[in-house]
C-alpha cells in the first residue's frame, strides 16, 4: 500500500513540475517587459533596473525559473501587480471560500445523484429511469452561468428569499454565509449531481449483469440483500473514485459561478487576474489548481485500492 502511494506520487510530482514549466513558459512568451509592468506608472530607468535585478529578470531563464519555483516551494508566489498583495496571502484567503463551495456542491450532488442513479439502475427501462436519465442530460447541458442567473431571478429577484450575490465569511456570520453560498453551491451541485447520477447508474448496471449477482440471486438471497451486499458494494467503488476526481475539478473550476454570484473565490481570482493582465496571479492559480487536481487524483487512486481488495496485492 505504502509502496503504491509512493509510486503514484512518483508520477504526480513530475507532472506538477511540468505544469510549472508550462505555466512559467506561458508568462515568458508574453510580449512586453515584465519589469516595466512591475514599475507601473514609474518611468525612472533606475527604478526599472532595480526591479529587474530584484526579480532576477536580467538572469538566464533557467535561473529565473529556479528562483521562482524555489519561492513557490516556500509559499512565496510573488506579488500581485493589481492588488500589490503577496499572492500567497490572496490564495490563503480565497481558497477556503472555494473549498467550502466545492464541498457543499459535492454534498448536494451525492444526496441527489446517488439515490437517483441507484433507483434508475434498479428500475431500468421504467419511467423513473427515463426521468432520471433526462435530468442527468439536462444537468450536463445547462451552462452554469445561465442556471445561476435563473436561480437569482427566481429566488432573489422574484421571491426575495436569498441574496443575489456577494459573500460573508463563515466565521463572521455562519447563517449569512450559508444564505450567500446556497445558490452557487446549488448551481455547481446540479452539474455534479448529473455526473454522479450517470456514473452510479452505469456502474450499477454493469454490476447487475455480473455472474456473482446471478449466483447470489440463485442462492435464494432476498433482492434487498443482493442489492445492498453485492451490487452496491461493488457498484459504488467507481462512483467514489469519480466523485473524488470531480471534487478536484470543482476546486479549480467554479470560475463562472463565482463570477455570476460575485463570490471572492479561486475562480474569480483567476478571471480578475486575466482581465487585469496580472499574470503572476494566473500562474499561481493554475499551478495550485493543477496541484489540487493531482492530489485528488492521488486520493481517488488510493481510495480505489482500499475499496477493491483485489488490487491491493
Amino acid at each position: 500500500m505504502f509502496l503504491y502511494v509512493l509510486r503514484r506520487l512518483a508520477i504526480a510530482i513530475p507532472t506538477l513540475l511540468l505544469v510549472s514549466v508550462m505555466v512559467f513558459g506561458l508568462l515568458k512568451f508574453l510580449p512586453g517587459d515584465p519589469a516595466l509592468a512591475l514599475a507601473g506608472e514609474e518611468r525612472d530607468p533606475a527604478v526599472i533596473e532595480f526591479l529587474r535585478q530584484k526579480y532576477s529578470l536580467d538572469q538566464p531563464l533557467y535561473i529565473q525559473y529556479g528562483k521562482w519555483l524555489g519561492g513557490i516551494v516556500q509559499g512565496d508566489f510573488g506579488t500581485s501587480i493589481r492588488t500589490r498583495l503577496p499572492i500567497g496571502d490572496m490564495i490563503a484567503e480565497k481558497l477556503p471560500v472555494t473549498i467550502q463551495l466545492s464541498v457543499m456542491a459535492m454534498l448536494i450532488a451525492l444526496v441527489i445523484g446517488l439515490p437517483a442513479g441507484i433507483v434508475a439502475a434498479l428500475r431500468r427501462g421504467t419511467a423513473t429511469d427515463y426521468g432520471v436519465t433526462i435530468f442527468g442530460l439536462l444537468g450536463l447541458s445547462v451552462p452554469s452561468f445561465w442556471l445561476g442567473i435563473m436561480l437569482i431571478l427566481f429566488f432573489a429577484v422574484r421571491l426575495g428569499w436569498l441574496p443575489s450575490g456577494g459573500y460573508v465569511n463563515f466565521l463572521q456570520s455562519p447563517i449569512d454565509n450559508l444564505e450567500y453560498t446556497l445558490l452557487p453551491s446549488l448551481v455547481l451541485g446540479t452539474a455534479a449531481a448529473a455526473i454522479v447520477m450517470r456514473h452510479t447508474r452505469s456502474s450499477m448496471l454493469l454490476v447487475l449483469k455480473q455472474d456473482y449477482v446471478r449466483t447470489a440471486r440463485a442462492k435464494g438471497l432476498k433482492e434487498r440483500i443482493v442489492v445492498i451486499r453485492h451490487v452496491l458494494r461493488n457498484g459504488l467503488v467507481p462512483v467514489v473514485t469519480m466523485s473524488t476526481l470531480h471534487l478536484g475539478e470543482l476546486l479549480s473550476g467554479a470560475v463562472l459561478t463565482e463570477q455570476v454570484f460575485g463570490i471572492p473565490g479561486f475562480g474569480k481570482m483567476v478571471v480578475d487576474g486575466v482581465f487585469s493582465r496580472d499574470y503572476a496571479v494566473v500562474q499561481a492559480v493554475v499551478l495550485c489548481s493543477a496541484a489540487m487536481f493531482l492530489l485528488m487524483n492521488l486520493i481517488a487512486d488510493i481510495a480505489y485500492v482500499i475499496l477493491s481488495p483485489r488490487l491491493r496485492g
Partner: protein
Amino acid sequence: MSTTKATLMSPAAAGSRPSTLRRCLNHPGTIIGGGIVIFFVLVAIFAPLIAPYEPNTSNWLAIRQAPSALHWFGTDDLGRDILSRVIFGARASLLVGLVSVAIAIAVGVPLGLIAGYVGGFTDMAISRCTDALLACPFLVLAIAFAAFLGASLQNAMIAIGISAMPIFVRLTRGQVLAVRNEDYIAAARLLGVPNVKIMLAYVMPNVLAPIVVQATITMATAVLAEASLAFLGLGQRPPAPSWGTMLDVARQFLTQASWMAIWPGFAIITLVMGFNLLGDGLNDALDPRDD
C-alpha cells in the same frame, strides 16, 4: 456485387458492418440528438432566410419589449429582435464547436498515434505533457489562452481547441496500445509496410470509433466553453450575436427584462443536449462490448 463481397467476408465482419449503422439508427438518443444538431445546423446555414429581423439593427422604438406577436422572443436593450439574434447566434456556437474540435483532433490524434505506436522516449514525452495539460482545469486553460491571444471568435476557437486537445492524445494513445500487438500489425511490419502507412491504414481505422464518440461529446463541451468565454467577454465581439454575450448583457436587465436571459440559455441547453444525446447514442451503438 454486394452479395459477392458479403460471402468473401468472415461471418462476423459481414454481420457487424450493417448492424453498426442500424444500431445507430435504432437508438433513440442518436435520432433525437442527431435531429437537434441537424436542426441547429440548418438554422445556422439559413439564418438570413429564417430570421424575421436584421440581428444587429437597433430599433429605438422597441427597446426591451416583452415577447409579442411582432417579436416572439421579445427585444433587447437596443431594441434588437432576440429571436433573430438567437438564430444568428447559432452560427458562432456551431462554428467555434466545429473548428475547435477539428483543431483538437488534428493535433491530438496524430500525437496520440505517434506516442502509442513509436513508444519509448517519444511516448513518455508526449504522455507526460498530456498529463500536465489535463491537470490544468479545462475552462481556466481556455480562458488563459483566450486572454493571451486576445478576445475574438477566431482566438476562442484556438483556445478551446488547444484546451480540448490532450483528451484526444490520451484516448488515441490508449486505443493504439490496445491494437499495437495484434497479429495483423506484426504481419504488416514483417511485410515491410512503412510505419506511416501502418499507422494510417491499419491502426487508425481501429481507433476511429471512440474518437468519433469523443469528438461528439467534445462538441458539447466546446459549445459550452464558447458561451462561457463570450459571457466573460473573451469570445465573439459585439455587436455580432453570440448566445454567451447575449446572456452577459441580459444579466444587467434581469429585473426589467428577464426574457433577454431566458431564450439564449434555452438555445445553449438544447444544442449542448443534442450533442450529448448523440454522443451517448453513438457510444452505445459503437461499443463492441454491449451486444
